[in-house]
């Protein structure tokens, strides 16, 4: 885990404590994304398109391949009966000079033994041996009962310039959480010191355990421009309900407004960076964001508290008044995003302003309950 986690200056409410912690864990990450939920064929494409915006052209193909294989590995070596919607997890972290691809799924003892043996074998082979082994397995064409010939794992070992990291954690019954991490070098011009040992899988295992325990289903840290948030919203769209109906619409709307709040008020005009996370709660979902900002928006906390104290009727009036007044103003912003979030869900907006070595930090969150608001 990264430094400073115990030194948080922020007095967080329960809902945004975790994101406060995780933003420090991921303080050096260029991009970071963790997703727990349903995996379908579209998921990989959406995720790949997210990373494609951020990486060097030459590494894109390899990354796309490795992400797709990791994802297929989750599916192939999962016992569907064991893997409920929240047992499988996929994560990527761009921590220069590496891109780390992390996956977790539940396996039974037979799969554990197979994967352990196979990965140990592959990690002991050099580049030429891997190539020869691949050709041999391909020629023999022996498919396992899971539909693979171990070819995916061999391909991953071939493309990853580092040994594939793995661990197995005992779960209930005879099952194991199979954690796997591929460490892909995306900047081979980096100093030998940086290109040495990649981040240990144990670090990500601890983070993922924490996210799982707190029911976090989605986390993204990185750029929040329109192009980048599109694949993220597509992932959410496919996994949080149909955006055509009111529930799916609510989540989608909150995600858009919160993400765009980051890009509007971020500290760097060119790079709209921040962190966004979704936790499942008893009532629905809790969405939260964090970002640095330049303007000391001293009155923001006061403004949010004022909105939190207002009735739905008054919020609707304020929204209409402000929206109409904004039409003649030259700036793009309508200035009604927070009012709209508050009136749409009628749950309080959580806000915390803070400061650390990098500047002023703003965190916002709100719970989307399926039983109140509109």
């Amino acid at each position: 885990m990264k430094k400073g986690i115990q030194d948080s200056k922020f007095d967080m409410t329960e809902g945004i404590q975790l994101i406060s912690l995780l933003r420090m864990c991921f303080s050096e990450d260029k991009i970071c994304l963790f997703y727990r939920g349903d995996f379908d064929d579209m998921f990989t494409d959406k995720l790949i398109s997210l990373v494609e915006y951020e990486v060097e052209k030459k590494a894109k193909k390899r990354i796309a391949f490795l992400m797709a294989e990791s994802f297929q590995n989750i599916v192939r070596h999962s016992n569907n009966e064991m893997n409920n919607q929240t047992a499988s997890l996929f994560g990527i972290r761009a921590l220069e000079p590496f891109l780390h691809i992390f996956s977790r799924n539940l396996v039974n003892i037979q799969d554990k033994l197979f994967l352990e043996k196979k990965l140990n074998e592959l990690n002991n082979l050099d580049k030429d041996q891997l190539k020869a082994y691949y050709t041999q397995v391909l020629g023999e064409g022996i498919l396992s009962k899971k539909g693979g010939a171990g070819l995916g794992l061999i391909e991953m070992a071939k493309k990853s310039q580092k040994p594939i990291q793995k661990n197995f954690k005992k779960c209930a019954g005879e099952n194991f959480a199979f954690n796997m991490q591929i460490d892909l070098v995306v900047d081979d011009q980096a100093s030998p010191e940086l290109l040495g040992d990649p981040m240990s899988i144990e670090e990500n295992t601890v983070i993922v355990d924490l996210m799982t325990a707190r029911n976090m289903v989605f986390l993204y840290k990185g750029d929040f421009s329109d192009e980048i948030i599109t694949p993220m919203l597509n992932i959410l769209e496919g996994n949080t309900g149909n955006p055509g109906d009111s529930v799916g619409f609510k989540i989608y709307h909150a995600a858009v407004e919160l993400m765009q709040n980051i890009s509007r008020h971020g500290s760097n005009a060119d790079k709209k960076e921040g962190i966004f996370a979704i936790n499942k709660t008893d009532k629905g979902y809790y969405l939260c964001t964090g970002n640095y900002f330049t303007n000391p928006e001293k009155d923001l906390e006061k403004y949010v508290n004022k909105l939190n104290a207002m009735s739905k009727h008054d919020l609707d009036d304020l929204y209409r008044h402000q929206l109409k007044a904004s039409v003649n103003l030259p700036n793009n912003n309508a200035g009604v995003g927070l009012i709209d979030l508050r009136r749409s869900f009628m749950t309080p907006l959580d806000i915390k302003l803070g400061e650390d070595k990098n500047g002023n930090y703003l965190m916002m969150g709100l719970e989307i309950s399926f039983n109140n608001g509109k």
Partner: protein
Amino acid sequence: MENKTIKATEFGPEIILETTGNITISGKSRMEDASLYYKEAHDWLLNYKKDFNNSLTVTLDLSYFNSSSAKQLLKLLLSINDAAGRGKVIWIYPENNDILLERGQELEIMLDLPFEYKSK
């Protein structure tokens, strides 16, 4: 003056502007800078009002719009609104999405234009 079509993007709707007086906006509208996206439509409408005296029908068939887009939609409808009796709005919304219906009703309160609601 010619018809104009602004093609939909991943985050912007399709906008069809016809000299017959029909304007159709459909899809999702969630771009961060909506003013930039809608600028061409505003300019077209400004010229149209100079050249034509037709009644305008704006069909809004949006599955989503963010707060930045709400401002642009209101701006567009207000510019029709300022020539009384020259326009109407057809608001199309998914049958199971009450929020989008209410968003239409809210715009109606803010304008002096007749709204027709159609679920799909």
